């Protein structure tokens, strides 16, 4: 039996933060998606404990503005990809607008920190989405290409192959076989 779930990133994150912070007995306020302010300064020990308990959930404490920006870029990109309409915009303009930095700057910061360009990252994200759709839905490649705003199936296949080294069909076959063997 299958159930399909989707989640609200913010709510999930906040819930986890709350749970952990409460557990550890901190006096805190969640300012926004990125920031948590504490009444008292945290000791290194406290910080590492917190970092460890949050790391299980994939939540990392970033102590770098750069890193934070990078995260914001990532988040914005996620937003853009999730938004069907926003997908039509060019990434560069979209990011520049949303984050109020020049695209060049953003690009630079991003590459420095992640060693990959924004474009690559976007592609990676899209391909990941494609992978999701191929693995978990019965949509055809044409439909997936359309949904993800590719100009054609060939375009999607090409990008898919370039990114993963596999054709979408091979990928699909492997995922199917994996499911059969219950990997």
């Amino acid at each position, binding site marked *: 039996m299958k159930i399909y779930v989707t989640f609200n990133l913010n709510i999930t994150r906040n819930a986890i933060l709350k749970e952990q912070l409460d557990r550890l007995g901190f006096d805190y306020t969640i300012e926004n998606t990125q920031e948590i302010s504490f009444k008292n300064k945290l000791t290194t020990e406290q910080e590492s404990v917190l970092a460890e308990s949050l790391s299980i959930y994939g939540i990392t404490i970033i102590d770098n503005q750069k890193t934070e920006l990078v995260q914001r870029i990532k988040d914005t990109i996620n937003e853009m990809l999730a938004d069907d309409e926003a997908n039509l915009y060019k990434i560069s303009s979209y990011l520049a607008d949303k984050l109020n930095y020049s695209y060049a700057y953003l690009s630079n910061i991003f590459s420095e920190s992640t060693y990959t360009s924004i474009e690559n990252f976007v592609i990676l994200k899209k391909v990941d989405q494609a992978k999701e759709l191929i693995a978990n839905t019965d949509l055809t490649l044409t439909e997936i290409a359309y949904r993800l705003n590719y100009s054609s199936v060939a375009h999607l*296949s*090409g990008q898919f*192959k370039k990114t993963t080294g596999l*054709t979408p*069909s*091979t990928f699909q076959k492997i995922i199917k076989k994996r499911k059969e063997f219950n990997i």
Partner: protein
Amino acid sequence: MDFNGIISSTKSYKIALVIAIALLLLLSSISYRQIINMRNSADLVSGSLLVDKEINNLFSKFSLIEASGYKSLIVNDSTFKDTYSVYKNEAETSFKQLAKLTQDIPEQRQYLDTINHWRDSLDISLNNINNYRGLLEEDVEDKLMAEVVKMASIFQKLASLKLGMSQKKDVLFRERINAYKTETFFTPFISLLLVLFSLTVFLLAFVKINNSRKELLSAQGFVDNIISNSNNLVNYFKPIIDENGKVIDFIFEYSNNKIEEITGIPTKQIIGTKLSKSFPITMTNGLFDMYVTCLNTGKVSQLTRPYIFKEEEVWLKSIVSKLEMGVNVTTIDVSQEKHASENLKKLNESLFLKNAILNNAEVVAKIGSFTSYPEMGVTDMSDNLYRLLGVKPGDFEPCLENLMTYVHPDDVQKFKKTFAKGISSKGITEVTYRIITKDKKRRYFKSTTLMIVENGTKKMVGVIQNITQSIKKDKKLEQKNKALKLINTELESFNRVASHDLQEPLRKIQMFISLLSETERNNFSEKGLAYLDKIDNSTERMQLLIKNLLTYSRIDNTLDGIQPIDLNNKMKKVKDNLSESIKESNITIVENNLPTINGIPFQIEQLFTNLISNAIKYKKLTEGAQIVIDATKVKPNQLPTPFNNTENAYYEIKISDNGIGFEQENAEKIFNIFERLHQKTEYSGTGIGLAICKKIVDNHHGYICATSKIGIGSTFYIYLPV
């Protein structure tokens, strides 16, 4: 009581007849008597009536006399005497008559006597009267009167006598008339009864006669029918005897319709003719003599002879018997039997021959056969079966136990079980087992048995085959097969391992050369770098070669994993795989509605990948490269001749390009392994690509060939079974 039986039996019929006659006589005598009685009675009645008449007559005469007497007295007539004598005579006649009539009646006689007496008195009186009349005597009147008074009293007495007589007569009359009535009452009945009885008897007799007649008729008809419908000819002959009493001929008295059928001569024509005239052959073939003998001796005999009727030969068997003055002959057409017996003889001969052939065949084919009646425990074994067991035919008594003594001890159980199964099963039972012949040789036998039901009894028929040779061959074959398989597997793994393991050092060489070029570049001279390059190129080539060889060897001959493949999808995948080179070379690939075939996915992919990449590699540089892929269905007769096709229909997949092409004379060469048409500096390649394609197509029971024109392009044809 079987009344019918009694009736129909002659004896009872006779008794019945006697009884009937007796009854009839009885009844008629009764009737006769009755009638006589009636007649007598009638006579009596009429007698009475006559008496009555006579009495009346008489007394009327007396009355007349009286009257005339008085009259004469009155008128003093002298005629009285005359009239009286007339009347007296008449009365006398009447009296006599009456006397006669009443002869038998004593009382009337008495009366008559009295009347007679008085008559006399009357007579006297009358005479006196007459006499007195003439006298004239004085007391005549008184005397007359006294006589008259006497006369009167006589008449009175006569009257009372009449009355008495009449009364008596009346009484008698009444008696008689009653008797008469009684008689007339019974007589008709008796008569009627007699008549009815007679009628009944007659009717019964008639019915009986009629029935008998009918029976007779039907019996006759039945017999007639039999005779006329009999398949046999029935003739009745009367002999013709010459003056010496010797029989010289016979004449057809009767012949049933069959004669027309056999001889073609109509029955009517035959009857009445002489035997010598109608069938002269019988005079000489012994038939006539047989008839004569039968006539003389009364012995029944038969003779079978051939005749020719209606242009065909028929065999007729004649059976003759004496019947009254002639002979009765029944003739049967035995042609069929004759033919049948001849056929049987022929059949027997051919059967004998066939048997001999069969026996011989058994020897040649090294088989033996047996039949067995399991319920009766009877078995029959063919001669060769004995020989198969290494003994002379008939060496031992054919039965299951004896046969089993030859079966290898390890196989006895199997043999027994299968044999038991064979008896109960309906189909064919087979079993293979070993036997040890008399001379201790081991042989392999295969028994095939079948249970059949022959006339209600179960019969087992079996064939035993000496399959020792084929078993040996099979074993040899198996061994060879195993060896081959082993070799094959070895070769395959050798191939794979070799290729695989060869690649390892090769890769290292290349790897370290690349490291050298990268990191130690500065330490090399130009020449050194150039040498490195050469080494690199060579190793690259070698690597490609090995890779291709590996691919080639990986195509195994089995069709494991064969499945339906939609070639359209496959082409898409191939195009995906080659997407970079396709993009780079700017080549357009057009595929038109490709079919679905059965094949091994990876191999088919390789096949098309190689062909497409070839087309890309050998494209013309001058114009836009194009590949067109088409598919059609073809019939086996449309296939190119070198192809040894076995299927009913094939798909022809055409891959045509507008590349550089090649000389048509090389069209077959290109599929040879390591065969190249160009320098390796001109076009890269190992010469294995197309060999791989051919191997794949061959594996799929298909065929590949190519046509080309230099400078125009090439077309590759792949034929795959539908």
